[in-house]
């Protein structure tokens, strides 16, 4: 499609696969639309897998760079573009974790957000504290269980999508997810009480 003749919003209605196809022919707008649609998920996946803002940024950039360079390897019959992207991101993340960079990763800073009113401050702080505790618990899972939890529970990927990204059967994704959740429950058990996320010691 010739540049300048594309109505605004045209790219938004195309599927990921169609956008990728257009991007591979050199359509920058198609690439940009696909990037804007998918970068958040890739970034958050890398962030939740590594706990590092810097690594998440690098992984996002390298993932889409790989899409520019090797996007022709995408096979629609094997799964969605999102799963393809998660698969690339996962390999990049694992490479970093394998290099034992985990220990050097900075803990990402909190977002600067609007402060709650004085009456809500304590509740807000305890809630944040609780969520950070959950984040640390997720980060402490072994990578194979962590990636299943991050993809299926935090990124809302389907089992099929996760299976493609993790390059394993759907059944394996299910079992890893169950194992991951069980481990997470054990990790959270001790520290759950007294935090803002509701629980009662008896129920745990």
């Amino acid at each position, binding site marked *: 499609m010739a540049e300048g003749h594309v109505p605004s919003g045209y790219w938004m209605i195309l599927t990921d696969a169609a956008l990728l196809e257009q991007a591979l022919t050199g359509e920058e707008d198609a*690439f940009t639309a696909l990037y804007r649609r998918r970068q958040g998920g890739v970034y958050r996946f890398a962030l939740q897998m590594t706990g590092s803002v810097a690594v998440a940024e690098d992984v996002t950039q390298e993932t889409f*760079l790989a899409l520019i360079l090797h996007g022709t390897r995408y096979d629609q019959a094997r799964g969605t573009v999102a799963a393809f992207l998660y698969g690339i991101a996962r390999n990049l993340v694992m490479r970093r974790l394998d290099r034992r960079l985990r220990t050097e990763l900075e803990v990402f800073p909190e977002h600067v957000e609007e402060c709650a009113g004085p009456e809500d401050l304590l509740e807000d702080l305890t809630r944040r504290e609780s969520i950070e505790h959950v*984040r640390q618990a997720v980060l402490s899972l072994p990578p194979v269980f962590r990636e299943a939890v991050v993809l299926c*529970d935090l990124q809302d990927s389907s089992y099929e999508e996760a299976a493609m990204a993790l390059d394993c059967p759907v059944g394996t994704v299910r079992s890893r997810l169950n194992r991951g959740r069980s481990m997470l429950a054990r990790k*959270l058990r001790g520290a759950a009480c007294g935090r803002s996320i509701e629980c009662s010691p008896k129920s*745990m």
Partner: protein
Amino acid sequence: MQPEEYVAAALRALAEQDAGREAPEEVEMRLRQVFRHRRARRKWKAVVLASLAAAAALTIVFLAGPRGRPKPAAPTPAPRELVAERTVQVEVAATAAPTPVHSRPKPRPAVRPLPAQPREVVTEFFPLLDVAPPFERGELLRVMVPAATMRRVGLPVNQERLGDRVYADVLVGQEGLARAIRFVSYEQ
């Protein structure tokens, strides 16, 4: 609350907290720069390849060197279009030795020897008919034509050399129609 419910609630809270997190804009800028750079490089590569192919064709067909080009035969009569230099009978089905046939009624001295250059370099055949009747047999006529003829079949020719004369083989079918042409140059 059951442990699995507690875990689900905890993960939901974490997902909600992270929902707004995205890569910074600089990442998009950098990627778009790479995208543009790569697209430009691909276009440039295509242009270079096309130029090289054209140059190679030109070299093979036309610019094999001044000595490689066919020298006008010494006593060549005034320039004529499609003057037969020699003919070769082409049989499609049979493989019998070709019988020389002169296309002009006036007998000419025996087939004129080719220039001293030992090796002929020919192009592929270019069709001259859009829709040709079935080919059964034909003759290959060696002729001299203006270089402009090459341009008519899509070969690149320097503007200054359009008037030069070059050797060509014309394939004439059994019905007498010129079906295809190829161009000939000589290499030492």
